[in-house]
């Protein structure tokens, strides 16, 4: 009885988890520009992997595996936002975006000001590469 119940829950988790991957695929194809597509690549996948790992944990029911499952998910939680940030930043800086899909762009003014300042400061030996990574 309990086994069937757990099987049903695990099965549901697996199907929904796979649907999340499908959502990522559809989003990759249908969203208008790079910056929107990044959303499809990060959010559903984190939930999808969580559900699949949870299903695995429910089916195996072993305490030894649990820390690895948690570790796998935590790693995903830590890495997904960082890679989204890096790709998004590169995309914004190289202007891989469609202006008409943006309702507001509060960063544009800041970037413009920074670029003007940079032009002003050109010639100074400023370790440009390191600072732009940190700021």
């Amino acid at each position, binding site marked *: 009885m309990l086994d069937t119940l757990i099987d049903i829950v695990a099965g549901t988790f697996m199907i929904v988890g796979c*649907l*999340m991957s499908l*959502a990522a695929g*559809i*989003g990759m194809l*249908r*969203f*208008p520009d790079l*910056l*929107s597509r*990044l*959303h*499809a690549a*990060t*959010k*559903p996948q*984190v*939930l*999808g992997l*969580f559900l699949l790992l949870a299903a695995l944990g429910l089916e195996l029911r072993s305490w*030894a*595996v649990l*820390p*690895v499952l*948690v*570790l796998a998910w935590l790693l995903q*939680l*830590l890495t*997904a*936002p*960082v890679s*989204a*940030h890096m790709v*998004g*930043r590169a995309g*914004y800086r190289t202007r891989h975006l469609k202006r008409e*899909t*943006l*309702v*507001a*762009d*509060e*960063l*544009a003014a*800041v970037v413009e000001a920074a670029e003007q300042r940079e032009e002003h400061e050109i010639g100074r030996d400023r*370790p440009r590469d*390191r*600072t732009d990574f*940190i*700021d």
Partner: protein
Amino acid sequence: MSREQRLADAKDESGQRQRSTLRQEIPLLVGMMLVWGALWQDFAIGNLVFGLLISLLLVRVFRLPPIILSGRFNIWRAVVFIGAFLRDVTRASFEVMYLAVFRGPRTTSAVITVTLRTESDLLVTFVGHVLTLVPGSYVVEVDRRSSTLYLHVLNVNDQAGVEKARASVLLIEERLIRMMGTAEELAALNAEKTEPSKEHGAPS
């Protein structure tokens, strides 16, 4: 350690970097030790000690600037936070799914500015991580000096949507400060709650 020193350390311009002390590294070492145990699926004492030795070696060889913990951690708030986080991740994922299927190419978004209350690098990073996973946003740029995040937010149709997104980011920050912010940040937060006239987060 002062804020200026931390910024200078990260930029590595002064040539003299502030090293973290062994005491500041304890959480990192314990975390690495547990990861080692989890990977081997073996939490026996011998294995953990070996993991600790390897972590010590790694931390010595690949030096990192220190992370400053606030020294305050509210476990109950953490449980509430994790619960809210799981709920929000589910909701955000289904929202993205809905948008991908039904709105598709007509989805509009916005790049907004949010100035956080906190000054700590750790909290800014944490807020950035959480808000990438929870509401429909991720961080495009960070201004570390003023703790300002520039976010890309999905599914924003008008100015009201922009304000809503800003409010939700500040709510995440509030939850995190209540969980692990410093006592001063918490006091400032409480003062702000009792006196709601002060506006936060709007770009200056």
